[in-house]
């Protein structure tokens, strides 16, 4: 068996005296969806942030594409960050209220030095089209879109970084049941086409039952299954 895309060993995250994530271990391969399921406060979002190194874990290993992340400095980590992207729960909160959708999707290209005057706008239009948004929506501000459209824009922004892993932090919990299926189908299509690995954070087992390849149950900071 080849090396896993993501390999987490004995991850610990503490907030003061509280241990939010306690000795969590799992691994995930490309093209695979692993769900972390549990009630609120069980440490699943802390796990997601620690995997993304957005909050440095207190101990344990996070090995991504064979490379250990926890020992890297912030500067060493920055070029690797695009390879693993988050999608957040709150579709509006994850986009800057002051920037147009097009600028939000273009920003990773600019930050990562892949923007050009000719190719840039086309790439943004292509990404918006890829997530099922009419590129005309690029001119709008987040509050002018519906929750589902915003979440698609958030996914387009994540794809702009050409990631291998998406950490989906309850990506459909804040959406209407009617648009949930659409977003989940989009994610499934993207995974088939691009071979992405998904770490899917969720508190509703019914949502992930059909979507995930494996489901890990978390309670009180520990994985119990």
């Amino acid at each position, binding site marked *: 068996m080849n090396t896993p895309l993501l390999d987490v060993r004995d991850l610990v995250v503490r907030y003061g005296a509280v241990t939010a994530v306690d000795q969590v271990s799992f691994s995930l391969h490309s093209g695979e969806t692993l769900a972390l399921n549990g009630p609120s406060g069980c440490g699943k979002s802390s796990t997601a942030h620690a995997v993304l190194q957005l909050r440095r874990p207190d101990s344990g290993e996070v090995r991504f594409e064979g490379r250990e992340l926890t020992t890297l400095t912030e500067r060493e980590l920055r070029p690797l*960050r695009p390879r693993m992207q988050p999608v957040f*729960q709150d579709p509006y909160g*994850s986009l800057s209220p002051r920037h147009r959708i097009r600028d939000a999707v273009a*920003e990773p290209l600019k930050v990562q030095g892949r923007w050009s005057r000719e190719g840039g706008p086309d790439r943004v239009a292509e990404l918006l089209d890829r997530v099922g948004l009419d590129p005309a929506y690029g001119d709008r501000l987040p509050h002018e879109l519906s929750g589902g459209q915003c979440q698609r824009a958030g996914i387009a*922004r994540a794809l702009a970084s050409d990631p291998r892993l998406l950490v989906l932090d309850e990506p459909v919990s804040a959406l209407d049941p009617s648009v949930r299926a659409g977003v989940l189908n989009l994610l499934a299509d993207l995974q088939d086409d691009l071979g992405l690995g998904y770490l899917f954070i969720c508190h509703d087992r019914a949502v992930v039952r059909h979507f995930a390849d494996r489901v890990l149950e978390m309670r009180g900071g520990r994985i119990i299954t």
Partner: protein
Amino acid sequence: MRLRVQGLPTAAGVTRVLSLLAVVAAVGLLPWLSGRDPALTVLRARSAEQEPTKEALDAVRSDLGLDAGPLDLLGSWAADLLHGDLGTSWVSGTDVLPSVVSGLQVSLALMGAAFALALLLAAALVAPVLVRGRRSAGAFAAMLAAVPEFLLATVALLVCGVWLGWLPTSGWQGPAYMVLPALALGVPAGGLLGRLVADALPAVLDERWVELWRGAGVSRARISAAALKRVLPQLVPQFGMAAVGLTGGAVAVETVFAVPGIGRTALGAAKSQDLPLLQGAVLALLLLGLVMGAVAAFTRRRLLGPALRDASLALPAARPVRTHPAIPLTLLTVLAVAIGWGLLRDPYTVNTAARLAAPSFSHPLGTDGLGRDVIARLGHGAAPTVGTAAAVCALSLLVALILGFLPGVAAGAADIANALPPVIVGILVAAAAGPGTGGAALAVALISWPPLAAHAAALVQEVRASAFLTAQRAIGASPSWILTRHVLPSVAAPVARHALLRLPGIALALASLGFLGLGAQPPAPEWGLLLDESRAYVERAPWAALAPAVALALLAGLAVSGAAYAQGRRVPRTGGAGSTGSTGKKKEALVEV
């Protein structure tokens, strides 16, 4: 939120102590800071006929201990201070302590009377809200709160003292002498207290429990008492700030009514360069401010009780008083027309034949004591006042933006800055650098940043906590990219708007320093100075005093109505986003006006 409450006291506490020490050290170092030779002052005061020869000056200098370095000076001053020795007045040669104590007694009596009056006025402003229910009396109260003490004192002197002749206007010989000063000092404070409570009450009276109690047949009086009890603890810190404001207002009021209080002592000492007396008086004023702040903090703890100290029971967001845009626009137009008209005329030509002329076709607002055209002086005085105020605004905006990223450091320094009224800082700066526009601007800038910094800190915290900023880190953006593309743009624009709203208030603070002779110097046509100059002729030529007084009142009105209009506009917009916590925080920052 709770993390912030637990984490900050150390940083805030350290800066609070450091800022306080810095202020006290500045007071102690005044003789060294004031570049001019104090020995000259002393020599002139002690023996007017003696020539300022080098030997005579050296003798005075070693007599005062000025030949030692600044650190020795500070050390010996602090050591004497601990023994209760405030030094000897350079001018009169008497001990400073007795003058400070007697001044303090007079000022405390005056402030006590003013505070009682303020409470009465606040009760009168709040009563209609409790009796009639929802409607807020905030607009009228805000108007009263914006009128600066020196303006009110001058108008009260003019109307009650001079025209009607009801009350004595100068001195301190009995209860009758206390009425006008207490009125001038108490009305703005009462307006502020009344406004704070009246603004907060309607939202509290809309809370569920009021309906429940009413349905259960609880009397209106008991509901009112409970609502007040719900509102007051959160407002006590701002009550404390109003009390601190009294110490600054006392300087102006005591000067106008010739009350021998500590404020007038401090101002007189600053003007005559009698630094030991000034040190003693300013120290007493600082102490007064700190004690009032401590009393406010203690009262709040007692009112809240142990369970609620962490402010877990926040007040509902106050519903701001909406103002029709026509009101600030009208005030602005009237001011702009008067200023524009005046700018076309000559403010400096002295015409002794036309001294104190009544308003006429050739002089629409009359002439002053030197026969200069009043409207021309008003117009020409506006440009430098507004320009200086704009510079002060820009400076405090810059400080606020920097400190917004260091909320721990800012909180401690802000506590000290809040405890210092502009007049007292103005006295200190004027004593160190000499009176002037630059010094006055520096003094106002030193203390006008805290509300802006609080606003900036709230916004920075809000932006930093947002998911889109986390997404920025995830795409590999550098801290400088995040700061310049996302954090600063979200913070700078709203804080800059807030700073603009404070422009009229800052102009008033500058005018109050000008009025006391601590700002622009004659013959500059600065508005505060105009009002001060015209006081001497108030009986013969009331119009000369009335014109700057009305102009300043219009400015105060503009400050209040402009702020109310902008606040009323802001609320529905941010409220729509559904983040009630953040709008509440923003409003808290705004309430600290």
